[in-house]
Structure formats: structure tokens, C-alpha cells
């Protein structure tokens, strides 16, 4: 198993402690294309943050490829993130004053890859996204779909074990959304990449092979979706 979650609990401390994740057990194998679905407040964002080593958890175990991810120092967490995980965000999160290729190079910069090599690898991934001509452009000169593809190139450039996509189509129109999801599916099929998509759109979830439903901090159901017939309109199952 690439990802193993065992009885993971997370409580946000505050005036009124909020028990967000109540014993999550989840296994995701290498090469799987999984979506995590749930309404807002269901704990899916928290789960994503834990999976992405952006946040810690209180009890339980989280392992990536057998490595226990728990109580890491900030430095260690940063290194693991850099090496193992590629992020794709709803709002792209590109750095505005850097060109497309510079954005893609950034993770490699933090790996200490030499400048020339960095540029070559970044261009290679931009090329795969069909953005060679846009390499020198700044994010505000590109469309949403292009920006998201730059972000995908940035996520892929370090050859991570896991791609985490947080509402990757949230800010895109429906046509572009389909294109981006197709792109992710292709990456999963061709490169055997492990991709986890967090979404509340059933249409997005339907593209993936496995749908994990999360509700009130517990996993409700895990739906095999190899035929991709989960209704985009939420008629069949627990989808809203």
C-alpha cells in the first residue's frame, strides 16, 4: 500500500473543541485514481491537509510507502512534501511575479537542482502540458485552464509519489474542467501516477476510479467506480 491511514483522529482546539476526523481508516495503492467527496465541513479538507503533510493529527497512524508521517519537524515535513507530494490547488497558487517556467522550476530549486537542469526539466513538463509557447508568460497573462496546467506541471516536475488535487476544477468553466480531469486521468493511466482528488462535485468524482465518501469526520462508503457511471447528478448514491 502506498498510503495507509489507521484510526486517524484530529481535533481543532478552541473555545469549543471540534472533533473533525473521527477515526479515519483508508488505504490507497500505488497507481490509483481516487476522489474524496464530501460536503463542506465534512472534514475532507482536513484529511487532505493531513495527507499532504500540511497539518498534523492527534492519534492514529499515517504511512506513505511504509514511512510513518507523524510529529515531524517543519523541516522534515517540508522535505517530505517536496519529495513525495505534488499539489494542485483550486486557485492554482502560482507565484504572480514568476513566469510559468519559473513557477515550475521552484520545487526543483528547493531540491537544490542546478539551474540548467531545473530549466530543462521544467520545460519538459510544460511541453507535456502543451504550454511550451507560454513558458515565458506570467500567470496573469494566461487563462484559468492554462494556469491550472502550469500548476499540474509544477506538481509533476519532482516526480512525486502522490498528486493531491484540491478542487482542481473549482475555478474553471465546465469545458475546461472536463479537459483538466481528462488530463489527470491520462496521467494516471499512462504514468501510473497515484492521484487523489478532493471535490464536492460528483461530475469530477465520476472521472476517478474510486470514490471515498466522507461525512461528519468518518468515511461513509468507498465506491468502486471503474465503469464511471456514478451519476453526475447525484441520483444513485450518497452524493448530494
Amino acid at each position, binding site marked *: 500500500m502506498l498510503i495507509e491511514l489507521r484510526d486517524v483522529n484530529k481535533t481543532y482546539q478552541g473555545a469549543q473543541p471540534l472533533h473533525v476526523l473521527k477515526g479515519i481508516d483508508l488505504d490507497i495503492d500505488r497507481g490509483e485514481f481516487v476522489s474524496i467527496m464530501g460536503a463542506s465541513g465534512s472534514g475532507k479538507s482536513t484529511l487532505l*491537509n493531513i495527507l*499532504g503533510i*500540511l*497539518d498534523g493529527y492527534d492519534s492514529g497512524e499515517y504511512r506513505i510507502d511504509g514511512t510513518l508521517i507523524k510529529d515531524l519537524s*517543519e*523541516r522534515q515535513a*517540508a*522535505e517530505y*512534501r*517536496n*519529495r513525495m507530494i505534488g*499539489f494542485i*490547488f483550486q*486557485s492554482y*497558487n*502560482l*507565484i*504572480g*511575479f*514568476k513566469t510559468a517556467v519559473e513557477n515550475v522550476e*521552484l*520545487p526543483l*530549486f*528547493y*531540491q537544490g537542482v542546478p*539551474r540548467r537542469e531545473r530549466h530543462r526539466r521544467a520545460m519538459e513538463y510544460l511541453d507535456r502540458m502543451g504550454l511550451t509557447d507560454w513558458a515565458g508568460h506570467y500567470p496573469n497573462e494566461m487563462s484559468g485552464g492554462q494556469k491550472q496546467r502550469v500548476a499540474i506541471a*509544477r506538481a509533476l516536475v*519532482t516526480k512525486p509519489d502522490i498528486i493531491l488535487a484540491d478542487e482542481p476544477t473549482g475555478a474553471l468553466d465546465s469545458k475546461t474542467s472536463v479537459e483538466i480531469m481528462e488530463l489527470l486521468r491520462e496521467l494516471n493511466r499512462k504514468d501510473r501516477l497515484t492521484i487523489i482528488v478532493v471535490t464536492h462535485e460528483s461530475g469530477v468524482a465520476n472521472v476517478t476510479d474510486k470514490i471515498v465518501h466522507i461525512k461528519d469526520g468518518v468515511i461513509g462508503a468507498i465506491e468502486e467506480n471503474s465503469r464511471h457511471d456514478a451519476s453526475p447528478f447525484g441520483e444513485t448514491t450518497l452524493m448530494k
Partner: protein
Amino acid sequence: MKDLLQEIWSNLRRNKLRTCLTGFAVAWGIFMLILLLGAGNGLIHGIEGNSGNYMANSINAWGRTTTLPWDGLKEGRRISLKDEDAIRTKEPPFDAYVDEVATAIYQSGLTAVYGSEYTNSFLMGVEPGFAAMEKLELMYGRFLSDLDMREQRKVVVMGSNEARELLGTSDAREAGLSVREKARKARKLIGKFVNINGIPFQVVGIIRPDERGGGSRMYIPMSTLRTLYRRGDTVDELYFSFHGLKTKEANEAFEQAYRKKLNLAHRAAPNDNNAIGIWNRFTMNMEMEGAMGIIRTALWIIGILTLLSGIVGVSNIMLISVKERTHELGIRKAIGATPGSLLRLILTESVLVTGFFGYVGMFLGVVATEYLDKISQNMVMDVGLFQMTVFKDPTVGLGVCLGATLLLVIAGTLAGLAPARRAAHVRPIEALRAE
């Protein structure tokens, strides 16, 4: 390193105005620091220049009046030093410290006449070694010689101001002439005979005007003065140079022992501090140096405080910058930036900004002090009796510049510390949410 610099450059370029304004505060701070230190140095050099013609390690001693009864004698007795006191000065245990001893006698209230001109004269009978000891600067002619002493010649060495007066010129009549040109006129008096209270003396040397005051001193051989005024073997003032007394305590102990010896030789109480006057230039200089040190320290402190406001400005702006860049820093962290790398990024930016603008300020400060040096060349205060240089060489040395450089690096680091720590501890989840 090159990547780091590029990151910083692109950030600074986005905020040109802000960077320049912040930089101005730092540049101004260091400019003021350099200017203050330069002006302070000018003042200190001026004062040092005025005391520069004293020999650093020397003591004067002269006879005064006793204030304590001793050995059957009442207080209020006049003490006058004798030739033997010069010999006593060279006896153990003082011989370990004392180098040269010279004596002098005075005759005041005299009038020197040359032709129809005259001036007040204060005659000082000295030995030839006196000139070196008191750092008298000969302009023309020669100083007194051993032969003058032996033959009791009637020769005189005087200051150029007195010589000029005797030649009938004065500042009022020679307005527009430089100090050097005025002094050159005094040369004419060499070889001429001047009457001092009716006795003709041949002028053999002209010395640079004595800025320390004391009126118009004229130097003649001690043997001549003794014979002319029947002064026997009394000595009005005893001078000696010494070495090996490094601390104030050592000097005081020496003075006390010396005083005791002279007091006893003159049948005065050994603890009578009034029987013999002692003036130690070494401790005077030490005290003066202490005062200079305080001035210098005060200037540094004022300068550093000025600089501090600039540094606080940098720190403030960096904090704002970090706050503005929270989102970007969060992205960097999410894709693998370690806290250390962000710390380095912000700290380096801070050091570079302070360093660059600091150097601009330092350069302008040095230019300003050089300009000050040009316009204040020999700014001399004339207090009538004597002249005093108040401002001289108001520049800072390489040492100050190096010190200021070090200060800038430290300042930059301090300024960047708080913002950098904040940047390093940006929490990526919150940063990414904040949009």
C-alpha cells in the same frame, strides 16, 4: 546564491518606491553617523593639535609656599628650588624613570626696544636642551648653544610675533598677508641687537608663535640671566622627561615619592602638597584622552541611535512585506521550502538592503567630511592672547568605515530577524487559505 539574489532582486523591483524610502532611512542614519564622527574627529584633532607641542612624558616642578610647620620651621615659608634639585631628580629611585632634566629661570616685567619700537618682554633663562624638551619650533636662525651658555653670551631667541612688533608691523598693518608671509618678515630681525631693559642682546633665532600663551617669552642662556640678575643657584622651574610610568597610579606614586624627597631636602613637611608645585603632562594627557574617548563614545552612541531609527524602518517594512507575501510564502512552503530557506531569503534581503543603502550613506558621509575638511582648513580662533585651532582634519579613517560596515551587517541581520522568523513560521494551510 545567484538564485537567492535573483529572488530578492525580483521582490525589490516590485516595490521600488518602498525599497528606496526604506533605504533612504538607513542611508541617512549612516550618513549622520559618519558626519558626526568626522566632526567629532575635527574637534578632537583641533584640541590635540593645540596640546601637541607639549612633550607627552614630562613633569614640571617649581617652588611654592609651605602650609605645614616642620622641623621647627613655621608654615608660610617660601621654597625656591636649587641646582641640587636637578641632581636629586636623577638620584635613585627616580633614575629608573627620569630621562632628561632641564632647569629654567624667569625675569619678568622687562621691556625690549628696537629702534623706536618696543614690546613687553618676559625673559626665560634656559639650557640648550630646553628647545627639544618643550618642542619649540625654530623658524629662522638657531636656538641657544652650549657655547652661549659657557660664555654667558647676550643672545636671544624670540617668537615671530614679538619680532614683528619690534619691526613695527602688526596684523592691522599687514591684513591680507598669510601667516607664513607675515612670519617671513620677522626674519629681518636676525643678527640685530635688541635692548632689553638697557642691555643689548643679539637676536639669533625666531621661533614659531607659541599658541599656549604665557605672553611674549624670550629665551636667553641661563648663565647669562643668572649673572645679569644675580640669581645665584636658584631655579624657577625644573623640567624632566620620564618613561616607564604607564598608569595613573604609577604616576601618582612617583609624584608622591618625588615630592617627599624634595620637601625633605627643603625642610618642608613630606606630606605638604603645597610646598612644591608639580605638573604632570602625562597624566594631564591621559585625562584629556579619557575626555576625548568620552566624546567619541557619545558621538558613536548618537550616530548609532540615528541609524537605529533607520533599522527600525527596515524591520518594519520587512514585516509588512512578509505579511503581504504570506500567500506566496505559503505556496513556497507547500511545494517544499524549508523554514531555513525562507529565513535565509528574508535575512539576506534585509542585509542587502541595509548594506547597499548603508554604503551609499557612508560614501556620501565621507564625501561630506572631505568637503568639511576643505572649507574648514585651519579654522583658527583668535582669543587675543594666543591662537587656537578649533577644527582640524574632520575626516574619518578606514577603521571607522570598516566598523560601520560591520555595524551595517549586524544592523541588517537584526532588522531582518523578526520578519524572517515570521516568514519561516508561516503555516502553509492558513497562508493558502488567505487569499
